[in-house]
């Protein structure tokens, strides 16, 4: 596929996701290249978030949810019997739709991951916190109040804190589930700038309901509809020369 110009980091092959007897994702295959941003777009309820959550085994936490098919990270099946979901989630981080900082201090939030992975050196933790907050473009705003509650931050700052928290565990892939949908335009543009920075070092997969956002930040776009991937291609092709009728209808605003 197109993604082969850069090496494939994450590959989904014939993935089905079920909630009980309801099939939310049908036969979805998608190659996500490293150091690129892949956007998942589609109307509400099309299954794009459901697909995203299959990529780091978050469905394990939902009673009744079941994932079939194959998803590989660097060629290794993440649903293999000997694959440890805890290790998988360490390597594939996630940013959620609503900012969900812990009710702890800003500092404690950032070092939560490194701490549970065994880092106890105070000096090292402080370095990690600063580095991650700088990467998330939040350092200058919070450096004087690291010991204040994360809940005192604005929504946009909280979301960048959540991104810093993910960066602190040094994942290889970052999944983002409509990370800017609860934010105002200024905060949104900060998050978008940040994603542009992140793709230099990470593989980013982002679900978005905003086509403009997908166009602004992603190299590749997959269009989801009714639980299927209707079309996948470079973002410019999807938006300017869609091959499928349904993609074109969605892009041009005829439904959704």
């Amino acid at each position: 596929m197109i993604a082969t110009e850069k090496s494939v980091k994450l590959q989904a092959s014939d993935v089905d996701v079920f909630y009980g007897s309801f099939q939310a994702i049908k036969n979805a295959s998608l190659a996500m290249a490293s150091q690129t941003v892949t956007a998942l777009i589609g109307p509400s309820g099309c299954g794009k978030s459901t697909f995203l959550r299959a990529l780091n085994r978050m469905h394990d936490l939902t009673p009744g949810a079941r994932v079939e098919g194959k998803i590989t990270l660097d060629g290794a099946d993440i649903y293999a019997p000997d694959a440890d979901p805890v290790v998988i989630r360490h390597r594939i981080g996630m940013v959620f739709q609503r900012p969900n900082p812990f009710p702890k201090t800003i500092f404690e939030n950032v070092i939560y991951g490194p701490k549970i992975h065994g880092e106890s050196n105070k000096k090292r933790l402080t370095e990690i916190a600063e580095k991650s907050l700088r990467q998330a473009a939040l350092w200058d705003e919070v450096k004087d109040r690291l010991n204040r509650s994360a809940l005192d931050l604005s929504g946009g700052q909280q979301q960048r804190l959540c991104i810093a928290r993910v960066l602190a565990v040094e994942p290889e892939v970052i999944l983002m589930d409509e990370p800017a949908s609860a934010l105002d335009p200024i905060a949104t543009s900060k998050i978008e700038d940040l994603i542009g920075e992140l793709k230099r070092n990470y593989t980013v997969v982002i679900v978005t309901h905003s086509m403009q956002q997908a166009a602004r930040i992603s190299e590749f776009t997959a269009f989801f509809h009714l639980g299927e991937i209707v079309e996948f291609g470079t973002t410019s092709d999807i938006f300017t020369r869609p091959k499928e009728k349904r993609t074109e209808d969605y892009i041009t605003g005829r439904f959704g």
Partner: protein
Amino acid sequence: MAISIIVMLALFVFYMLFLGARYITPGFLFGLPGESSEAGGGIGPEIFNSFYILTLTLLMTVPIAVSAGVYIQEYARPGRFRALVQFSAEALATVPSIVMGLFGLLIFIYFFHLRFSAIVGAMTLTILNLPALMRVTQEAMRTVPDSLREASMSLGATKWQTVTKAVMPSAIGPMTTGVVLIAGRIFGETAALIYTAGLSVSANSPYDFSLTHSAETLAVHLWYTRSESLVPDVDRIGNGSALVLLFMVLVFNVAARVLGRFLSKRLTGKSS
């Protein structure tokens, strides 16, 4: 309606103060009780026993009830076993305390041949309060939104790390409030202790840490003095004890709120 509740509480407190305040002296608070037919004496050992049995009870109840509550809330999948545990806890919670006292008498005293003692009283109160504390734990864990569990798991935390490092610290406020409120209830418990902790205090010393001494608590003392005692100064001991008991229970209630708020702030970093 709301105001009438405040008025009733205020009237009650003032009436108790009116009846008992004049009897509260250091000798009464810290002194030994008098002989059974003579006037005079204090309630020192009874106050001590109340705190002692409370401590013992919490030491046993908290670990068991918190583990059970965490297990049911965070680990158990919905199903028959979980429903059975829930049902058992609810059934246990409705057992009247006098029945639990008689149960303690049957099991610990008659069957295991233990004596009326602090430890038997504490074990009986443990059974009595397990369901309530388990419920408190469950409710406290339930106040923590799932988004925090997801955040923790998505950072590569194990389930156990998520529960201990993210969920429990976030639930510490309501948890503490619940524990202290239950502590207040344990402190004032009477019926369950009459046949388990006994109606007399240690002959050795006013502050006897022995687990096996008979350990009449303040609430039991109040009941006993009022209903059975032959001492001539029943009013003094009764009204004085009642006032002390009331004061203690109020302290627990206030402490529950203050502590809960304080810990919430400390452990969750929430600034008010």
